[in-house]
């Protein structure tokens, strides 16, 4: 096994034992990154110089034994909607081409303080709007398991770089499934924390009441290690919760005997892809054999979650994206007067999916339709949250498929926006309710594409997610499978 194929926890042991330096490790990782990048296209910006400088700093820390954490000296990828001081941050949009933030996102500060190394900014759907990374202005990222298939989205590059061993882990963001769906399609672990668990300061906003940042890793232990670093209250984010952060790496190893698992019948429709259904049901049986109890539950309002989301998210986005006006940063297209400048700049800077969502949101919020759309969606939101609250009185975690199908081919879902939106049908209600959820691999399809298992938890109970996932993972070997990097 090559160095870059190892997990964070494995390689950290090597670094600690001084079997190799972070600079050596980073050089090897970057060499592999560049070797496969023409095939995979995970990165918008590769930060080779910064990475090597950070690696040298990490080596100093390791040598003196001060401030060494499990992430010290570890090369990671960062989704290109997280602000990185002095390093281009584009949101995969023409609007922010060349934009260099004068500040770091809080999560980036925390990774830096932990001694991590950033190898690059990963590709994504433009402004996080999409489920395939096809709306990126810069490039199309390929799924390492089949290069003619999408990696999922919007955190497609963050998923593919981990799957293809170009980085040991990455940060993604999730508003309707954007961490979990690409994790499922690329055969890795992805966790969306409880809303408020991780600071959003420095996360370029899409939908402020739904967005969360989370880790994307090769296995559950790596996920726990990253969660330990990024979680916790931040005074710069008024929506970040002042709730203590447990040691997730310790919590993860606790027993799941007697754990009550809920299976919501709405997530297993008759038309569900039989391979997905079979893989998920086998995983549930596996969890049973490990000591968990399975109960059938219902989340009756979940069929309305997609409709509610496609009002709430675009409405919030229309407000968050109003700042892109060509005045202080980003693209500017000149005009005769200021309004013309705004309109031309925004027309040139945003892609069609972004424009669609801004217009949808503007429509839903303007006075005539506010009650029928936005207010209605907020009420449906309460109903969806209540479903989860009620379910969690009976069970500890909920298990479902992450997505209805394995990875699809490029262009397969781009003609009709609605077909793309339906990809998120199992992930979306989780964001609406604000609860945490994780995806991990539970099978491979006949066409050699990964199938993902979603585990949903109570607010601030990421520990339950991690221990359930860890127990399952350690009793199977899906996490050891590697993609072929071939096209078919």
């Amino acid at each position, binding site marked *: 096994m090559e160095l870059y194929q190892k997990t964070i926890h494995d390689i950290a042991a090597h670094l600690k034992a001084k079997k190799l330096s972070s600079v050596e490790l980073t050089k090897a990782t970057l060499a592999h990154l560049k070797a496969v990048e023409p095939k995979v296209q995970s990165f918008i910006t590769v930060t080779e110089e910064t990475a090597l400088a950070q690696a040298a700093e990490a080596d100093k820390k390791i040598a003196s034994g001060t401030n060494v954490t499990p992430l010290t000296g570890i090369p990671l990828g960062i989704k290109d909607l997280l602000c990185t001081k002095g390093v281009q941050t584009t949101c995969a949009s023409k609007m922010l081409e060349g934009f260099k933030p004068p500040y770091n996102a809080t999560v980036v500060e925390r990774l830096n303080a932990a001694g991590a190394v950033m190898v690059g900014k990963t590709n994504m759907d433009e402004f996080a709007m999409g489920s395939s990374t096809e709306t990126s202005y810069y490039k199309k990222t390929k799924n390492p398991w089949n290069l003619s298939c999408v990696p999922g989205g919007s955190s497609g590059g963050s998923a593919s770089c981990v799957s293809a061993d170009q980085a040991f882990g990455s940060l993604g963001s999730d508003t309707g499934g954007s961490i979990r769906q690409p994790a499922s399609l690329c055969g890795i672990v992805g966790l969306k924390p409880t809303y408020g668990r991780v600071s959003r300061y420095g996360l370029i906003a899409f939908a402020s*009441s739904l967005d969360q940042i989370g880790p994307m890793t090769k296995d559950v232990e790596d996920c726990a290690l990253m969660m330990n670093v990024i979680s916790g209250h931040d005074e710069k984010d008024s929506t970040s*919760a002042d709730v203590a952060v447990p040691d997730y790496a310790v919590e993860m190893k606790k027993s799941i005997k007697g754990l009550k698992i809920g299976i919501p019948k709405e997530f297993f429709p008759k038309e569900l892809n039989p391979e997905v259904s079979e893989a998920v049901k086998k995983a549930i049986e596996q969890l049973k054999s490990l000591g968990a109890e399975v109960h059938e539950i219902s989340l009756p309002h979940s069929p309305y979650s997609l409709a509610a989301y496609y009002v709430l998210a675009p409405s919030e986005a229309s407000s968050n994206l109003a700042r892109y006006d060509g005045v202080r940063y980003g693209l500017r297209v000149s005009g005769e007067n200021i309004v013309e400048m705004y309109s031309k700049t925004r027309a040139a800077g945003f892609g069609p999916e972004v424009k669609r969502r801004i217009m949808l949101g503007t429509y839903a919020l303007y006075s005539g339709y506010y009650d029928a759309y936005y207010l209605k969606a907020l009420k449906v939101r309460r109903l969806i949250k209540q479903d989860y609250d009620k379910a969690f009185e009976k069970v500890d975690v909920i298990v479902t498929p992450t997505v209805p199908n394995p990875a699809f081919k490029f262009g397969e879902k781009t003609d009709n926006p609605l077909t793309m939106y339906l990809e998120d049908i199992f992930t979306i209600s989780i964001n609406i309710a604000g609860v945490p959820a994780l995806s991990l691999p539970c099978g491979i399809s006949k066409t050699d594409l990964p199938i993902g298992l979603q585990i949903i938890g109570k607010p601030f109970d990421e520990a339950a997610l991690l221990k359930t996932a860890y127990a399952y993972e350690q009793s199977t070997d899906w996490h050891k499978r590697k993609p072929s990097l071939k096209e078919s």
Partner: protein
Amino acid sequence: MALSEKDVQYVAKLARLEVTEQEVAKYTQQLGNILGYIEEMGKLDTANVEPLTHPLDMKNVFREDAVKPSLTQAEVLSNGPEVQSGHFKVPKIM
């Protein structure tokens, strides 16, 4: 609620998005489809349901009225498309 091309033009104006005639036609159709799907929510009886604006029940998150360091003028202007004498330069407003 059927979406007309006039609606789309008005909304584009509100959102400060210049759109071509072709785009208006295309967006009218696509947005119309999406709205049709969204109207499914109308089937739910929500008469006695309070809206939920936020997943977390948080109140009164305030900060102290204490001065913190600002950016330097150079940092503020660093991403400006057009700057002059310490200001961002824009076309006429009135």
